[in-house]
């Protein structure tokens, strides 16, 4: 039943749902959200009356207060989320607001909860890391700015995943986009950062346009802006397909699905490391969240959407890594690997939709479950890796893999923590990302038995992805931490404890989730059940499909035996006499003779040379051979926009008024009108 609410909804065309009794959990979550949003203020205010600080002074009070506010907000949000999950209380809150459209409607369901955990946790870790990061180099103006926008970003992300109204969703989406823009351009004195910021702003607004179209059609079809399945059940298949396609464009741009990823690598490279961690670990996931929300509110998509996701996922996963192998900048490598991981999530999503198309509930469970687990695993892994990249940058002052090496000696603790994250990023057992990819693999193998053989091609795609990820992460780890320094540097050292502690926390979580995936299985089951029900498929608990307990025992014994073997051998080897490395009998090897990261990546990149076109510059006589792997999609966009520019310049000559050619111009107008009528006629005929 709907009724008019006197006073506040008189201008509404449609009857609005009544203001519900506010759930106390929703109030708890919203107060947490408010604290997140406000957490940037104390550092900002404290800055204005700042006295010159002694180098050994206690940490500045403003940032510390801000961190505590953020942590308190995150704690409230996490408590509300967990309670909502455990009690099954939807934590919904809905009231009319002063805007002419929409309502303020929020709720927490399992899909929201899946995203709320990283959204609440990662910003806290990032600002703790930021304490060490900023104390080390930059000035406090940047610091206060980053704090303000991290708080706003966290709050808008939390609002985004809780929003149950299209207008509120778009407001949160735009808040997230703008906060990210200011975070990417933190160092706005750097032209590269400004360029990355503008690229991002254009990309995100192209996506927002698609979302405007999406939600406008939604509102027109349902007569309401509420994001609920009840009002949208009557949509025709063609409308549904159009809406999913718009969603794929809008949300795919944010997630960084190839070929919509062009904004992602420059933005991740330009931002400070802990901001890159947030962008990669949390913000790109908002795109995946958007797709999941569409699945929950729209009728089930046609099979073609699932196939498109499988294809886009395969392209992103494979080409993302090929491009990662071609980069010299450590953070660009990590950024391209994010494209790969988004691809893996799209593969999981595609598998689940293939399961829906073929009526296979096991595929639906493994696809959604694997994707959901991979969202968590990737958030942990990539955040830890970006933190590690920040520590390396902090130690050396650059991020060029070809100039690094041997850092393990100087940054032993960073090296160990980064190794855990690196192994997880290469999806190796017994770490978190292996456990999540295992679910998707199992889904692909189960697809082969049914009629969805096409979807089972995800397995060889994952195998190639896994092997390329192995090469990518052997490369990033070994060329940073192993061997000898390729360039002399002044004794670099481990970063301060505030930077190491968040990394240690993440590494521990990566290990725990890898060894005991059972800990998150209830959450994954809840997410899977919600999504499966939306698709009209019977939900299947993951524990019936995967032998988690046996895997835990095996993983733990693998970890134990491997550590024992390494320890025993190293105890003997550490005492062994040392000699120079055998280099084909060459008696005086120098550090410059080591294999370079560029050459290391080249042998794999060249396998895909037809797709990515590496550019090699060989000087005639003396000098360095340089080898770059430009982004093929970006190159295409630039080339096409150049051509469009030239073409539009040519078209402009047609419209320029010239004496004696008026008839011709009238002819053009006539032709255009005829064409328009024809198009309209065809369009009307088609829909009638």
């Amino acid at each position, binding site marked *: 039943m709907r009724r008019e609410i006197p006073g506040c909804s008189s201008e509404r065309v449609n009857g609005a749902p009544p203001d519900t009794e506010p759930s106390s959990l929703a109030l708890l979550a919203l107060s947490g959200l408010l604290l997140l949003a406000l957490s940037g203020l104390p550092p900002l205010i404290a800055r204005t009356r700042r006295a010159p600080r002694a180098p050994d002074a206690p940490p500045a009070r403003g940032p510390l207060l801000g961190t505590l506010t953020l942590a308190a907000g995150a704690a409230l949000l996490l408590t509300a989320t967990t309670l909502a999950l455990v009690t099954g209380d939807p934590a919904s809150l809905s009231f009319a607001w002063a805007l002419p459209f929409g309502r303020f409607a929020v709720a927490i369901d399992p899909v929201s909860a899946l995203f709320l955990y990283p959204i609440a946790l990662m910003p806290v870790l990032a600002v703790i890391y930021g304490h060490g990061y900023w104390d080390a180099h930059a000035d406090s103006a940047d610091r206060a700015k980053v704090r303000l926008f991290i708080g706003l970003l966290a709050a808008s992300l939390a609002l985004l995943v809780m929003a149950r109204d299209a207008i509120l969703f778009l407001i949160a989406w735009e808040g997230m986009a703008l906060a990210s823009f200011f975070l990417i351009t933190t160092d706005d004195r750097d032209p590269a950062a400004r360029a990355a910021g503008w690229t991002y702003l254009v990309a995100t607004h192209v996506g927002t346009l698609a979302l405007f179209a999406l939600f406008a059609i939604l509102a027109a079809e349902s007569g309401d802006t509420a994001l609920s399945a009840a009002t949208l059940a009557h949509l025709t298949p063609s409308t549904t397909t159009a809406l999913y396609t718009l969603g794929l464009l809008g949300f795919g741009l944010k997630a960084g699905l190839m070929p919509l990823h062009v904004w992602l690598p420059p933005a991740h490279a330009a931002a400070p490391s802990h901001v890159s961690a947030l962008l990669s670990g949390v913000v790109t996931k908002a795109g995946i969240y958007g797709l999941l929300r569409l699945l929950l509110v729209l009728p089930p998509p046609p099979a073609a959407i699932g196939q498109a996701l499988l294809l886009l996922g395969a392209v992103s996963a494979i080409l993302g890594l090929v491009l990662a192998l071609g980069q010299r900048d450590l953070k660009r490598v990590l950024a391209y690997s994010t494209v790969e991981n988004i691809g893996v999530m799209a593969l999981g999503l595609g598998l689940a939709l293939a399961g829906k198309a073929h009526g296979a509930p096991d595929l639906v469970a493994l696809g959604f479950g694997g994707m959901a687990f991979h969202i968590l695993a990737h958030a942990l892994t990539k955040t830890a890796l970006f933190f590690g990249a920040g520590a390396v940058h902090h130690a050396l002052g650059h991020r060029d893999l070809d100039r690094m090496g041997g850092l393990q000696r100087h940054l032993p603790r960073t090296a160990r923590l980064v190794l855990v994250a690196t192994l997880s990023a290469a999806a190796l057992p017994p770490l978190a990302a292996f456990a999540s990819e295992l679910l998707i*693999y199992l889904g692909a193998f189960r697809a082969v038995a049914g009629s969805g053989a096409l979807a089972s091609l995800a397995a*060889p795609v994952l195998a190639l992805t896994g092997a390329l990820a192995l090469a990518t992460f052997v490369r990033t780890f070994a060329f940073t931490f192993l061997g000898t320094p390729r360039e002399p540097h002044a004794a670099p050292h481990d970063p301060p404890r505030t930077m190491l502690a968040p990394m240690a926390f993440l590494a521990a979580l990566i290990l725990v989730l890898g060894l005991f995936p059972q800990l998150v299985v209830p959450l994954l089951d809840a997410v899977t059940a919600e999504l499966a029900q939306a698709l009209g498929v019977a939900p299947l608990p993951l524990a019936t499909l995967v032998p988690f307990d046996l895997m835990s025992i095996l993983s733990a014994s693998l970890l134990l035996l491997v550590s024992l073997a390494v320890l025993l051998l190293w105890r003997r080897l550490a005492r062994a*006499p040392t*000699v120079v490395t055998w280099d084909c009998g060459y008696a005086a090897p120098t550090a410059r003779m080591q*294999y370079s990261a560029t050459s290391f990546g080249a042998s794999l990149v060249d396998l895909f040379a037809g797709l990515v076109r590496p550019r090699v510059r060989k000087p005639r006589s003396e000098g360095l051979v340089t080898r770059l792997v430009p982004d093929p999609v970006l190159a295409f966009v630039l080339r096409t926009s150049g051509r469009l520019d030239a073409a539009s310049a040519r078209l402009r000559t047609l419209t320029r008024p010239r004496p004696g050619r008026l008839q011709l111009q009238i002819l053009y107008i006539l032709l255009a009108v005829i064409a328009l009528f024809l198009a309209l006629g065809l369009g009307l005929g088609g829909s009638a």
Partner: protein
Amino acid sequence: MSLTDRLLQLTLLALTLAFVAPLLPGVIAKVKAAIAGRRGPTLVQLHRDLAKLWKKDMVRSETTSWVFSAGPAVTLVTTLFAALIVPIGPGPAPLAFEGDLILFVYLLALGRFFTTSAALDTGSAFEGMGAARDLTFAALAEVALLFGLLAASAHAGSRSLSTLLPTFDAATSTAPLLLVSAAFAIVLLTESARVPVDDPNTHLELTMVHEVMVLDHSGPALGLVLYGAALKLLVLAALIAHLLLPPLTSQLGWLALLPTLLGLAALIGLLESVTARLRLSHVPAFLVAAALLSGFGFLLEVT
């Protein structure tokens, strides 16, 4: 399977891993020597080498860290785990569960991570080159392996090596089986660094792949590397042997399996005697061919 059968199987498995694995490189070398008209080393040369290396002292490069010792140590442990997942001998493997084939592939990858990292830890240009080649070839070989496993899994409707290898047999799907076996043979040659992908007898660092990555290991560490390589050869050969043999049901299956393994080793020796290694730039095409073979096997199986 009864308890006594299980114990018997585990004992036989332990003996196979300990003694038959080092025998395979011995058989290869013996066949090659025989064809070249030499007498060659004894069949148990590797056993003797391992015993000798175990007693020796080690030296290490001054650039290395603990990661260098992780190369041999992790590879050995992961290959042993893999050997417990692949059914060597009759009956299900000691570790058989839903999805074990994925763990199998990723255990080999974990070993590869540390072998290549250890190579890069020495800071040698040649070892870096070898690591890059190894990872490149492995990327393509892994696709061939996965397509083959997918075909077998489609046939058997199972995701455990212990069930799908015996079920995938010549009687019910001849063509896919032949294609997948051929692809697996190429994977075996690649993973165990054999001609035509890699030449274990070359003395030129510039042309080595696997050999060059372990140049700096000595003494017991080198012993672990050599034994680990032999073990990997055994595991992959067992994978192929199970495809070629009819399902082994009784413990007498060992009597059929062991000669098959030795026969496969002899075949590798024969191949190494009559072919030269491919040019490095042609190896990827060879591996893509393997991926296509098992890919077609997969297509035939599902259509």
